[in-house]
C-alpha cells in the first residue's frame, strides 16, 4: 500500500469534519483530514481583532452540541469544558426597555409582568410545552433518517421510533405538535401572547440563521429545532465553552489525533476523484493525489458535488435538485473590540447574557421583506454576546469583545455589491446598538465586519448561508440535502456528505459528522464501493 493511501479522506476541518475524523479513527480506520485554510475550525474559527481579543468569525454560541458526541469522543479529556452558567436572553427594546427571558422562572416572570401580566402567566406553560415537543424530536438529531420507501427493516424501525417518540407525548401534545409544526411562528405567538416584545423575542429564535420572516411557513419547526438543543441537560439553553470556540475545536482535533487521525491544514482539495460511479480519492491543489475508498466532505453540498466532484459523475435530475436547494444566506457578522464595557452592560444586569434586538413580529417581518428583495434593511435583527464576560476570550485587561450576529443581511443585493456596502452595514449595526447601549460607539477600538459575501468567500459557501442550506421542514430529516440522499451517501459510492448540509443541519451539533462516519464505517465493512465497482464491470 502506498504511503499516501488511507481508508478515508475527510474534506474540511470544521467541527463536523473533525468529529467525523475522530469517529473513523476511533474505529481503527486510517484517516486523513484535509483543511484548505491554514487553521482548523471552519465556522467556529476565531480571529484576533485587537491584541488579546479573539473574535468568533461566525458561530458565537453553542446550541445543542451533541452530548453523545462529547461523550463518545471523551472531549472533556481533551480539554473541553462547557460552562454550566446561565445565559439569559435579553431583548433590547426602544426607550432603554428590556425584556429578560431567563432559565430562572422568577426572573422571567418579573420581567414579563412589566409588559403584560397575562403573558407572564401564560409563558411558563407555553415554554414548557414547546420544550416537551422539541424533546420528542431531539432523539432524531443523532440518528440517520430513514428512507421514505422503507425498503429495509432498519428504515421501518427508524420510522416507527419517530412515531413512538411523538406518540409518547400523549394525545394533547401530539395534537398540538401536528397543529403547529407546519405553521408560522407569528401565528403561534400572536395566538398566545399580547406583548409585542415577547412575540418578537420568541420569533427571533425561529428565524435566526435563515432567510425567513416570522410569517414564513414552518418557522415553528425552526423554533423547535433550536429549542431541541441540549446543553448539560438544560433544554433550550445556550452556552459558551471555556476558552471559546477555539477550545471546542482544539478538543475535537485532540480527540481525532489521539485516535490516530492525520490532520493536515493548508491542504486544499481541488477535486474529488471518481470513476464509473465509485470514488477513488482526492486530488489536492498542489497536485498530490490521495487514494482511498471513502471520501467524506463537510463542505457545502453544492461545492462538494458540483465543484469538487463535478456534474459529469451525476445524473442531471440529481444535479438539478442540488442546484435548487434553498440556501441564500441572511447573516452577517460584526465584531467590536471595546476599550471598556458600557455601563448598561455592566453590574447588576442579568449576568452574561445573549442580547437580542427583535422588538416585534412586525419589525422582524419588515426587515425580512427588505432582505427578501435584496435591499439592505433599515433595521436588522441582532444577536450579541460578550464572550469576554464569560472568560472565554483570554486575558483582556478590562477590554471587551462584542460579537454580533446580524440577521437579514441578504446574500444577494439588488443594487451594488457587498464590498461597497461593508461599512454601511457596520455603521448601521453600531447605530442600532448605540440606541440600546449608550456610549458603545466611543468605546470601539476595532471593528470587523463580515458581510454575507465575506462569509461565502471565507468558508466556501455558495449562497453564503451559514447552515449551508436552509433548515426549513422541507429541507430537513429525510429531505436534507435532497430527497432520497439523506443518509449521508451520495450517488457516487464511497462519497459522503458529513457537514451542515446533511441532517440534522447547521449549528455546532457535531451530529452530521457523527452520523456520516457511522454510515461510512458500515459501508466500508460491507465493501459497498467495491461491490459497485464490480457491478459496473
Amino acid at each position: 500500500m502506498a504511503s499516501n493511501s488511507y481508508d478515508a479522506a475527510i474534506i474540511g476541518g470544521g467541527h463536523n469534519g473533525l468529529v467525523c475524523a475522530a469517529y473513523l479513527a476511533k474505529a481503527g480506520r486510517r484517516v486523513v483530514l484535509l483543511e484548505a485554510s491554514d487553521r482548523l475550525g471552519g465556522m467556529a474559527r476565531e480571529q484576533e481583532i485587537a491584541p488579546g481579543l479573539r473574535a468568533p468569525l461566525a458561530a458565537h454560541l453553542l446550541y445543542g452540541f451533541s452530548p453523545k458526541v462529547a461523550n463518545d469522543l471523551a472531549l472533556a479529556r481533551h480539554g473541553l469544558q462547557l460552562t454550566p452558567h446561565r445565559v439569559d436572553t435579553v431583548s433590547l427594546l426602544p426607550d432603554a426597555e428590556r425584556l429578560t427571558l431567563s432559565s430562572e422562572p422568577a426572573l422571567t416572570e418579573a420581567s414579563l409582568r412589566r409588559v403584560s401580566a397575562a403573558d407572564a402567566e401564560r409563558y411558563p406553560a407555553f415554554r414548557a410545552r414547546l420544550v416537551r415537543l422539541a424533546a420528542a424530536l431531539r432523539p432524531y438529531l443523532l440518528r440517520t433518517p430513514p428512507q421514505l420507501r422503507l425498503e429495509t427493516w432498519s428504515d421501518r424501525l427508524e420510522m416507527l421510533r419517530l412515531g413512538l417518540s411523538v406518540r409518547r407525548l400523549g394525545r394533547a401534545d401530539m395534537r398540538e405538535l401536528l397543529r403547529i409544526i407546519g405553521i408560522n411562528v407569528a401565528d403561534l405567538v400572536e395566538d398566545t401572547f399580547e406583548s409585542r416584545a415577547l412575540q418578537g423575542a420568541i420569533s427571533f429564535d425561529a428565524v435566526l440563521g435563515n432567510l425567513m420572516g416570522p410569517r414564513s411557513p414552518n418557522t415553528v419547526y425552526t423554533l423547535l429545532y433550536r429549542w431541541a438543543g441540549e446543553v448539560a441537560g438544560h433544554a433550550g439553553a445556550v452556552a459558551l465553552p471555556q476558552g471559546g470556540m477555539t477550545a471546542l475545536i482544539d478538543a475535537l482535533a485532540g480527540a481525532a489525533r489521539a485516535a490516530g487521525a492525520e490532520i493536515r491544514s493548508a491542504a486544499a482539495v481541488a477535486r474529488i476523484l471518481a470513476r464509473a460511479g465509485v470514488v477513488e480519492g482526492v486530488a489536492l491543489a498542489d497536485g498530490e493525489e490521495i487514494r482511498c475508498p471513502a471520501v467524506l466532505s463537510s463542505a457545502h453540498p453544492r461545492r462538494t458535488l458540483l465543484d469538487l466532484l463535478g456534474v459529469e459523475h451525476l445524473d442531471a435530475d440529481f444535479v438539478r435538485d442540488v442546484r435548487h436547494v434553498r440556501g441564500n444566506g441572511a447573516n452577517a457578522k460584526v465584531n467590536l473590540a471595546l476599550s471598556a464595557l458600557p455601563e448598561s452592560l455592566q453590574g447588576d444586569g442579568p449576568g452574561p447574557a445573549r442580547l437580542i434586538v427583535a422588538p416585534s413580529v412586525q419589525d422582524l417581518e419588515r426587515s425580512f421583506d427588505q432582505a427578501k428583495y435584496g435591499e439592505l434593511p433599515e433595521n436588522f435583527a441582532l444577536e450579541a454576546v460578550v464572550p469576554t464576560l464569560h472568560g472565554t476570550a483570554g486575558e483582556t485587561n478590562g477590554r471587551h469583545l462584542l460579537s454580533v450576529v446580524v440577521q437579514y443581511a441578504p446574500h444577494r443585493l439588488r443594487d451594488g455589491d457587498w464590498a461597497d456596502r461593508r461599512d454601511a452595514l457596520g455603521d448601521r449595526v453600531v447605530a442600532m446598538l448605540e440606541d440600546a447601549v449608550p456610549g458603545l460607539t466611543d468605546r470601539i477600538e476595532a471593528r470587523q465586519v463580515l458581510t454575507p459575501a465575506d462569509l461565502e468567500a471565507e468558508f466556501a459557501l455558495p449562497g453564503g448561508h451559514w447552515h449551508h442550506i436552509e433548515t426549513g421542514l422541507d429541507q430537513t430529516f429525510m429531505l436534507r440535502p435532497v430527497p432520497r440522499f439523506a443518509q449521508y451517501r451520495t450517488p457516487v459510492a464511497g462519497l459522503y456528505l458529513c457537514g451542515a448540509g446533511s441532517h440534522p443541519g447547521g449549528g455546532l451539533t457535531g451530529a452530521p459528522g457523527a452520523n456520516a462516519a457511522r454510515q461510512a464505517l458500515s459501508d466500508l465493512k460491507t465493501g459497498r464501493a467495491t461491490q459497485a465497482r464490480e457491478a459496473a464491470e
Partner: protein
Amino acid sequence: MTDVLLQTPFHSRIAPLCRTNLWERWSGYTTVTQFYSETEEYFAIRNTASLYDISPMIKYRLSGPDAARVVNRLITRDIARCAVGQAFYSPWCNGAGKVIEEGTIFRLGENDFRINCAEHQLTWFEATAYGFDAAVSDVSQEIAGLALQGPSARLVLEAFGLEDIRKLRYFRLAEFEVDGLKVTVSRTGYTGDLGYELWVSPRDAEALWDRLVAAGGIHGLRPIGSRVLNTARIEAGNILINVDYVAANKALRESQARSPFGLALDWAVNFKKDHFNGRSALLAERAAGGPPKRLVGLDITGRRPASGAYLYDGKREVGQVTSAAWSPILKKNIALATVDARYAATGRKLMVDIYYLKEITQARIEATATVVDPHFFQPSRRRD
C-alpha cells in the same frame, strides 16, 4: 381568431389529397389520419413507396465544444461509436433509469447534433447540459420533414435527382442539392422498411413535395396517413411513446415507468462509457435481476386485433397489450405487450382476452398468444 392547430409546411399540397377528410392532432399540428384507402396506403409502404409528413416532430440542435459529452451523458448508447454523418437511435433515461423518451440522433459534426423526438425535451436537455459548454435550441419550426418509405423509395429518389443515393448506407445522412433545392437525407424511418427521411427548410417544402410526387408517380408513390403508419411500425416492432410506455417524467405512478431493459432495448445500454443519466439505477436494476415487467411481441391466434387486451396465465393476470394490429404482409395477428418479467421468455404461451364490438354488443374471444421477438417484419432491404 387564431387557429387551434397549426398547418405543416406541406399542408397546401396535402389537404386536397385528403379525400376522407380524416385529420388528427400531432404536436399542435393538424395531420392526416387517412388519405383515401387504408389498404392502398398500407401497401404503398410495403410494395411501392409512401410519403408521410413528419414536420411536427420535435427537433433539437445541440452544439458547442462539449456537445458530444452532453449527448453521451443524455443517451444510454455510446456516442463515440456514432461517426459524423451517422444517425443513432437511442433511449434516454432519468436518474432512476426510467425512459423519458427515445429518438434519433443525427451527428452533423464532431460536436453538432440534431435530436428528433416526439415530446418536448428542452428542460431535460438543458438540465443535462448544465455545467458543460454546449447549447440546446429547439429547431422544430426551422425544419420540415417527409418520410419516404417503401421498397421503391430509392428509385423515387434517383428519379428525383439523387443519383448517388445508393451510396447512403443505413442510418447515415448526407446533404444534397438538386436543382437549387437543398435537402438533407437520412436513411432512417419508422416503418422497418427501406426508407429515407428528407429534411428541408419550410420555404422549400412545397417544391420538395411537388418534385417528389412528379418523380414518384411511376413508382407508385402514395401519401399515407398515421393509421397505416401505425400498422407498419407495429410490424417493425418500433415502440411508441404514450402508447407502449409512459414517459418517465410524466408517469404519475412510479410503477408505470420503464427502463430500457423493460422496453427490450437492452442492446442500447452501454455501461462501458462515461456516466450517463440513470447509469447507477440501471446497474442496480440489472444486479437485482432485471426489470419487473418487459415489453414483448405476441403472435396471437385468430384475426381480431387484441387492442388493450389483458393477458393471463391460467387465472393470473400477467400483462396487457399496448399495441395491436392485423399484419397484412405477415398475415398474422400481432401485438406489442407489457408482461411480468417471468412470462417474457420467447415461446411462452399466454391467454388473451379480446373484446370487440359485435353489432351493438360487446363480444369476447379467448385467443392464445405466443411470446415472440417484437421485430415482426424488418426486411433485409431496409439496410441493404
